[in-house]
C-alpha cells in the first residue's frame, strides 16, 4: 500500500472541561472506505471536523494527504471534499448555480466543469432539475447534490458526516452508488454514521462511544470476533424466557423480535442457560451485535437490574384505541398527510417508518389533537381528535423528537411538573412519580439536572414524563434517534412492557431494523401510508421469503411508483 491518506495518532478534543474525543488512532489507505460508527455524542462529528482541518485537535497529531492538520490546515481544506451534517448547500441557489459555485471556489478548470457537472448530475439523477432551487428538492436529492458539489473538484479524500441521516431508502441506495463510483475512481472515503448496518459498506470501521474507540477493523473480522456471543432464542412462550434472561448476569442485552424470537448478546462465548422449550442457537452477529458486545457495561449488581418484563396478557376484545379514516392534512399546496386509514388496538405497538418529510410527525400531531386534519376523521381513546381534542389530550402521552424536557430542572422536578400539568391529583403525585420512574427504568437520577444526564437517560425520563398520567395511548416520535444500540434495546423493552399493560403505542423511527420490534408496521412515503401490517405479512405480500426491512420498504416504494405511473 502506498502512502496512507489519513494518519491519526492519539487524537483528542476538549471543549472546556468536556472531553468529546480521546485517544483515537487509525490510518486510512488510498481508495479505502472507512466508517466511523457510533451513537449521537460519540464524537463522530468532532473527529471528522479534525480530519477536515476545520477543528484543531487539543491532543494528538493528524496528517491528511501528507499535510499536518494543525500547521497546514489551509492546504488540507483546499484538497478534500467535506460534507457536513444536515443540508450544507444554498437553498436559494439552483442546482446548477450551487454546482458552479462549488466549482468556482474550488478552482475547477472551467473547461472541465461542463463535462464533470453533466456526469455527476446524471449519476445522481438530478439532470432534469438543474434549474430548480436547492431548497425545493427532496431531502434525498439535496444530499445527493451536496455530494456532487463535493466531487466536482475530484478530491482524493471525501469526508462525509452522516450522509444518509433521515434520507429515504431509495435515495440512500443512490447515494451509496455514487460513493461506490467515487471509490472505483480511487478516492478514499471517511464517513460517519449512526446506522449500524451502513458499517458493512466500509472496508474498515471504527466504533466510537463517548469519544473513545471501542473497536477498529474490517466488518467481517469484527463480526467474527463477536461470534459465539450472539444467540437466537426460539420459544413458544417468550415471557418466562425474558425473565430468565434479565436475571442472568452473563446476558448483556436481549431484544424481542417479531414472531416471538429473541436475540441475545452474551458477555462470554457460551449460550444462555434456559429452561422449558426455549432453544438457543448461535446467530451470525450483525454490526449492531458487535457494537453491543463491545460496549457491554460491567454486570449490574444484584437487585438493581431492570424489572423483569411482565407477562403479556391475552389479547382482549377491547375496542381499538386509535381509529383513523381517510385522514389528510394540507399546508397550502403541500399534502403533508394524504388519506391515511389505520387502527391500533390496546396493547399493540404500531411502528411508522419513513424518511424525513414522509408525514410521520404530522400524522402523530393530528392523532394527538395538536393539529386539525383537513379531511377525514380520527378517534383516539374514544374521542374525536378534531372536536374533542381536550379529552383526547388528557388520555394520551406524547414524546417528541427533541424530548421536551426542561434542562435546568432536575429529573424529579420535570416529572412533578408534567404530573401536575396533566392534572394528577395532589394525593397521588408521589406514588405516581415513583411508578413512572420505575416503569421507565430511572434509578438514582432524581436530583440531577436534566442537562447533566446522558442522551439515553434523558430519553427514558421523557418517556416517564409522557406516561406519568397513565395514558391509554402513547405516541413516541423518533424516541430512539441517535441513541446507542444498548440503550435502544433497553428502551424497546420498556415500550414492550407498557404495551403489556394494555397501552396502545405508536412509534416513528427511521431505523429500519427497529421495525422488527413492532407488532405492525406502517410504511410512509410522501404523506401516504403505502403499506400496513405485520412485517411477515408485508414480506409475504411482496412474494418474498426472507427480506430485510429495507428490501420490503423498497419493494413497496417500487409498487407505489408503478401504481402512480399507471394512474
Amino acid at each position, binding site marked *: 500500500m502506498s502512502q496512507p491518506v489519513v494518519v491519526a495518532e492519539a487524537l483528542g478534543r476538549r471543549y472546556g472541561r468536556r472531553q468529546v474525543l480521546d485517544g483515537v488512532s487509525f490510518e486510512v489507505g488510498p481508495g479505502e472506505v472507512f466508517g466511523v460508527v457510533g451513537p449521537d455524542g460519540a464524537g463522530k462529528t468532532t473527529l471528522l471536523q479534525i480530519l477536515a482541518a476545520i477543528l484543531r485537535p487539543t491532543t494528538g497529531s493528524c496528517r491528511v494527504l501528507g499535510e499536518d492538520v494543525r500547521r497546514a*490546515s489551509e492546504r488540507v481544506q*483546499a484538497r478534500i*471534499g467535506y460534507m457536513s451534517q444536515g443540508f450544507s448547500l444554498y437553498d*436559494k441557489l439552483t442546482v446548477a448555480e450551487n454546482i458552479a459555485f462549488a466549482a468556482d471556489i*474550488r478552482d475547477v478548470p472551467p473547461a472541465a466543469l461542463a463535462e464533470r457537472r453533466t456526469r455527476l448530475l446524471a449519476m445522481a439523477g438530478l439532470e432534469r432539475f438543474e434549474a430548480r432551487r436547492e431548497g425545493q428538492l427532496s431531502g434525498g436529492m439535496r444530499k445527493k447534490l451536496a455530494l456532487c458539489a463535493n466531487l466536482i473538484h475530484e478530491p482524493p479524500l471525501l*469526508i462525509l458526516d452522516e450522509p444518509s441521516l433521515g434520507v429515504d431508502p431509495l435515495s440512500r441506495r443512490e447515494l451509496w452508488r455514487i460513493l461506490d463510483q467515487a471509490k472505483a475512481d480511487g478516492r478514499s472515503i471517511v464517513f460517519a454514521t449512526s446506522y449500524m448496518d451502513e458499517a458493512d459498506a466500509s472496508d474498515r470501521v471504527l466504533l466510537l462511544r463517548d469519544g473513545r474507540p471501542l473497536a477498529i477493523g474490517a466488518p467481517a473480522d469484527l463480526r467474527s470476533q463477536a461470534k459465539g456471543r450472539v444467540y437466537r432464542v426460539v420459544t413458544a412462550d417468550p415471557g418466562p424466557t425474558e425473565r430468565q434472561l434479565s436475571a442472568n448476569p452473563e446476558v448483556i442485552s436481549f431484544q424481542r423480535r417479531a414472531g416471538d424470537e429473541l436475540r441475545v448478546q452474551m458477555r462470554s462465548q457460551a449460550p444462555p442457560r434456559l429452561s422449558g422449550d426455549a432453544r438457543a442457537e448461535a446467530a451470525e452477529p450483525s454490526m449492531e451485535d458487535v457494537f453491543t458486545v463491545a460496549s457491554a457495561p460491567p454486570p449490574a449488581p444484584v437487585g438493581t437490574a431492570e424489572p423483569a418484563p411482565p407477562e403479556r396478557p391475552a389479547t382482549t376484545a377491547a375496542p381499538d384505541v386509535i381509529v383513523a379514516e381517510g385522514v389528510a392534512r394540507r399546508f397550502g399546496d403541500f399534502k403533508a398527510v394524504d388519506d391515511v386509514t389505520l387502527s391500533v388496538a390496546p396493547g399493540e405497538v404500531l411502528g411508522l417508518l419513513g424518511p424525513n418529510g414522509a408525514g410521520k410527525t404530522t400524522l402523530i400531531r393530528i392523532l394527538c389533537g395538536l393539529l386539525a386534519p383537513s379531511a377525514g376523521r380520527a378517534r383516539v381513546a374514544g374521542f374525536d381528535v378534531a372536536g374533542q381534542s381536550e379529552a383526547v389530550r388528557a388520555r394520551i402521552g406524547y414524546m417528541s423528537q427533541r424530548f421536551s424536557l426542561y434542562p435546568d430542572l432536575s429529573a424529579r422536578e420535570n416529572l412533578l411538573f408534567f404530573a401536575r400539568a396533566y392534572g394528577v391529583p395532589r394525593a397521588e403525585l408521589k406514588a405516581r412519580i415513583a411508578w413512572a420512574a420505575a416503569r421507565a427504568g430511572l434509578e438514582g437520577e432524581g436530583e440531577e439536572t436534566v442537562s447533566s444526564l446522558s442522551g439515553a437517560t434523558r430519553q427514558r425520563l421523557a418517556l416517564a414524563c409522557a406516561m406519568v398520567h397513565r395514558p391509554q395511548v402513547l405516541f413516541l416520535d423518533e424516541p430512539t434517534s441517535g441513541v446507542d444500540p444498548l440503550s435502544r434495546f433497553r428502551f424497546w423493552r420498556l415500550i414492550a412492557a407498557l404495551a403489556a399493560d394494555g397501552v396502545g403505542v405508536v412509534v416513528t423511527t427511521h431505523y429500519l431494523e427497529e421495525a422488527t420490534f413492532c407488532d405492525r408496521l406502517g410504511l410512509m412515503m410522501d404523506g401516504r401510508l403505502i403499506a400496513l401490517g405485520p412485517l411477515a405479512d408485508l414480506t409475504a405480500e411482496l412474494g418474498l421469503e426472507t427480506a430485510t426491512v429495507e428490501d420490503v420498504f423498497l419493494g413497496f416504494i417500487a409498487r407505489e411508483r408503478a401504481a402512480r405511473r399507471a394512474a
Partner: protein
Amino acid sequence: MKLRRLLAFSRKEVIEISRDRFTIGVALFMPVMMLFLFVYGITLDVENAPLMVVDHDKSAASRELQARFVNSGYFMLKAAPEDERAAEHALMRGETRAALFIPKGFARRLGRGDGAPVQFVVDGTYASTAAILSAYGRAILYAFPGELRLPVQPEVRVWYNPQLRSRNFIVPGLFAVILMAFPPLLTALAVSREKELGTIAQIYASPLTRGEFIAGKLLPYAGIAFLELLIVVIGGLVWFQVPVRGSLTLLLAVGLLYVVCTVSIGLLVSTLVRTQLAAMLTALIVTLMPAFLFSGFIYPIFTMPAGFQIYASAFPTRYFLELSRGIVLRGAGLRELWPNVAVLAAYTVVVFAIAAWRFRKRIA
C-alpha cells in the same frame, strides 16, 4: 487572493439577496421608511404651542400684547380664564405649555412709562422646548409696544440654515444614521446565517481564503449600502428639498468610504457571534444605539460631558455626520473636512483588519 473565487462568492451572495424578500425589504424599503418617519416625526421647530392668557387689565394694550403672541405663529391661544388658578391647573395637567399673566393697571403703567410688569410662565418639563418658548416670549415682550432702543445694537445672523428649518439639519444627519442602522445588520446576519445553517462548513473546507471570504461578503453588502445612500440622498434632496451647498460628488465619495466602514463593522460583529439572534442584538447595540444618541444626530456632542464625548468618538457615525452636515449645510469642502475623512479611512482600515484577523476557517 484569487479574483475568480472572490467573484464567485460575491455572485452567490447577490443571487441569494435578490431571491430573499426579507433582505431586500430591510435593505431598500426600511431606509426609506426611516427617512420619512424621522423627517416628519422629529421636528425641533416649535410652532403653535398652547398658551393661556389671564388678562386682569382688559385694555386695548393688553389685547394688543395677546395678539402679538398669537400672531407670531409660535403660540396659539388655548384659553383665557378669569383667574390665575385655572391657568396653573392647566399647566399642571399639561394642557398648556405657557401662561401669560397681565395684572390690573398694565395699560396705565405702560402709558406712564413706568415699568409695566407681566408674568410669563413656561412649562420646563421639556427643557429644550421651554428654552425656545421663553426666548420667543422674551423677544415678543421686548418688542412691545415698540422696538426697544438698547445702547448696543446687536445684529444677530444665523448662518447656513437661516430659517432654522430642522429638516435641513435632520436629513443630512439621517444619512449617517440610516447607513449605520441597516448595512451592518444585514452583513452580520448574512454571515451568522451561514454559521447557523451550517453552509459555512463548505466554505471552511475549501480553498477560499479568509481574505476572499471577507472581501466577497463586503463587496455585495457595500454595494447595497451604497444603493441605500443614493436612495436616501435623492429622497432627502428631492422630496424634502434640502439644499446641498457643497459638492454632491464629495458627499457620495465620503459616503462610499462610510458604507465600507459600516459593512466592516457588520463583518466584525459576525466574527464574534454564532447565531443570527446574537448577531442582530449585537449589531443593534454597537451600531443603532450609539448612532442615535452619541453621534450628534439630535443631541450635540459638544454639550456632552467629557467622558461621553470620548465614547461618542469611538463610533464612526459622528465623523460621517459632521462630514454630511458640513457638505450639505455649510458647503464645506475637503480643505475643511479632511481630518474627518482621514479618521474615517483609518477607522475603516482598522475594523476591516480586525474582522479579517478574527475570521478563522475553523469551527471552534
